[in-house]
């Protein structure tokens, strides 16, 4: 026979101060667990969301990223005219030769970080339909103009429309802002290819982004580019290329895991403390339950359930504490591109469920010993009291 759940709920309510304090303690642990998960999730999904099927990023063989890739400009035509590249309405192959450079620039808070500037032509935007102008206008070539992402303009000095930044030898004017649907391009600045190549004195391409007509053509193109001994280039699947950069979150993951484990253990002890005092304060009640004919097993599971309810209540509090952070934007270093990547805390239902599961585990681990103690209470022991 099972002991009704109402018994546990009422018991928790009677000692509401203790219940609330223990639950809040567990809640804080769960909140930290959720926040760390939301950080990792936000950072990872920024990369995972970037790129399109059948797109290839062509970079120099041996380099792992655009930031350390460079090759001769005349290779652009070799790549662009390969078979299997999709064409736009006017019949031009969808291939965008680009240069990426990095500037060290102060954030609004004062300290500096690296920002990636991508020199592109019109083709760069045709291959990135997710990039939408939200304010101002498109840059013009030859006059050193910049298109800054909304996220960057909220985080860095002089990156707002109408302001200008002194880079190397000239002043560059911010003429427009864009938004790129939460992809990695939201951490970039766009400018005219020729302008960037001139300013940096680098008549080279860092990468060529191409769109294959279909998956088969993409595979063929990849092989064709890699096999060509003369050009020393390689084609990487655009989605995979960005997915590989989720390695940026490895530090936060390790830190988050460590914190979750240590705090989880601490919370187990706190829950155990509370449950022991609940059990020992109710010896008479348990005796009465036994006298009424409830089995040892029913008492064990009843107290275990009570502990889990307590922990889950904490878990819900934790979710509520963490939720306001959803959408908060922040940035960290992407050591593969050697520049700053901006992202949002992303709390998903899956993460909240993980937080509740985490709380439930704390409840079970913290409740098991006290529940066993309760099940061991003998009728004689109570009656003699």
């Amino acid at each position, binding site marked *: 026979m099972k002991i009704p759940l109402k018994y546990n709920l009422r018991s928790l309510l009677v000692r509401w101060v203790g219940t609330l304090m*223990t639950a809040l303690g567990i809640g*804080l642990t769960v909140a930290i667990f959720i926040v760390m998960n939301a950080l990792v999730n936000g950072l990872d999904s920024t990369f995972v969301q970037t790129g399109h099927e059948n797109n290839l990023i062509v970079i120099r063989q041996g380099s792992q990223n655009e*930031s350390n890739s460079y090759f001769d400009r005349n290779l652009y035509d070799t790549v662009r005219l390969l078979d299997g590249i999709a064409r736009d309405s006017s019949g031009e192959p969808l291939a965008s030769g680009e240069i990426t450079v*990095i500037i060290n620039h102060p954030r609004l808070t004062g300290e500096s970080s690296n920002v990636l500037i991508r020199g592109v032509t019109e083709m760069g935007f045709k291959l990135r339909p997710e990039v939408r102008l939200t304010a101002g206008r498109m840059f013009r070539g030859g006059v050193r103009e910049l298109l800054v992402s909304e996220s960057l303009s909220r985080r860095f000095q002089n990156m707002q429309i109408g302001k200008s930044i002194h880079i190397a030898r000239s002043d560059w004017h911010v003429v427009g802002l864009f938004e790129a649907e939460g992809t990695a391009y939201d951490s970039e600045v766009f400018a005219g290819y020729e302008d960037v190549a001139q300013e940096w004195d680098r008549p080279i391409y860092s990468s060529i982004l191409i769109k294959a007509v279909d998956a088969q053509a993409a595979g063929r193109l990849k092989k064709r580019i890699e096999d060509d001994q003369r050009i020393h280039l390689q084609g990487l699947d655009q989605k995979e290329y960005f997915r590989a950069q989720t390695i940026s979150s490895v530090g936060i993951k390790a830190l988050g895991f460590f914190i979750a484990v240590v705090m989880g253990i*601490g*919370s187990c*002890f706190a829950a155990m*403390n*509370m449950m*022991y005092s609940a059990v020992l304060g109710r010896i008479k009640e348990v005796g009465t339950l036994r006298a009424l004919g409830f089995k040892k097993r029913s008492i064990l599971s009843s107290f275990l359930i009570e502990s889990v309810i307590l922990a889950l209540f904490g878990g819900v509090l934790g979710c509520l504490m963490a939720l306001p952070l959803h959408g908060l934007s922040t940035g960290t270093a992407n050591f593969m591109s050697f520049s700053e990547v901006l992202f949002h805390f992303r709390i998903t239902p899956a993460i909240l469920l993980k937080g509740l599961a985490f709380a439930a585990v704390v409840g079970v681990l913290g409740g098991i010993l006290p529940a066993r103690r309760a099940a061991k209470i003998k009728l004689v022991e109570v009656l003699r009291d």
Partner: protein
Amino acid sequence: MKEEDQTAMKFLPFLLRNVFRNRRRTLLTVTSIAISLFLVATLLTVLSELNEPPSTPDGALRLITRHKVSLANILPIAHKDKIATIPGVKAVVASMWFGGVYKDPSNFFANFAVTTDHVFELYGDDLRMSDAEKQAFLKDRTGCVAGRKLAKRFNWKLGEKIFLKGTVFQMNPELTLRGIYEGPDEGSLFFHWEYLNEGLNNANICVMFFIKADKAEDVPRIAERVDALFQNSTAPTKTETEKAFVLGFISMMGNIQLLITSICSGVIFAIVLVAANTMAMSIRERTREIGILKALGFRRAHVLFLLLSEAIVITLSGSLIGSWGARLLYSNMDLSTMTQGFLQRFYVTPQTLTLCALIGLAVGVVSAGIPAWQASRRSVVDALRRVV
């Protein structure tokens, strides 16, 4: 004062009895606090490691010059001789992050090409090895030196052939290990810039200049002079102390300070709750006893003092176990190798230990404050009548 000390001592056995009255509860509370403070000590150590990069007497004299735009821009090697003419400059070394891969990208370690004429002068005690090894490295154009920990990681011996595959540059140097150095950073590899330069068809470029000043007071002046020297050249520079350079690198990782301090505050708040719960439970159970104490003539302040000290004994011992446990654990662990050089020494500093002890003290006072205050104010009659 003396009298008070005696009073405190007199109550010690009574205090300890009360602490151990419910052993299981005390043990669980102490464990919970110890685990939490272990975490706080760890996080504070991460923070101090990042905010206070390891500094050495030689490091304090070093400056780093890079291109004004960013580290990804190159500088002409010709800058080196010009910098050397600035008064107060003792040594200049051109350096290039090579970013070579050893066998597999997962074997990541820092490898630099450096000019070797002043390299040992520049690093001084931070690059310790025998004179024989130094000479062997200087003589062999394809030679290299590696840190002790790095050599241990791959089980390299002197004379080992080390083949690197270039990522930033299209060059694959074939190196011979000529020396194994000791110093604060033992996870990097250095080889001859001249060798790299040949591979790059004498491009005569580098990314950074390391400068060593004669005296510490010269450091700011040298930084200004270097940047003024190249202000109007095609490659303007930015010069800062080695420490500022490292801190700038770390600030790129984002607001770790805020993340860690918020987590620490969360953890501390959680242990306040745990401790407060324990104290509330134990004081509630003793209401009648406290009534008796007061009936015997104990004053309100006495009762408050006793209950607060009891809480402090519990929270302080928890915090001491946690923070000293962290210190003991980390001093016996090689975190530098485990994190591939990201965490260099990971040492729980005396300041961190002090801070943790203070946190323990404060948590005790805060957590026991309200229940102890209430208990001490309760009238004798009320307390004795109360049925628990």
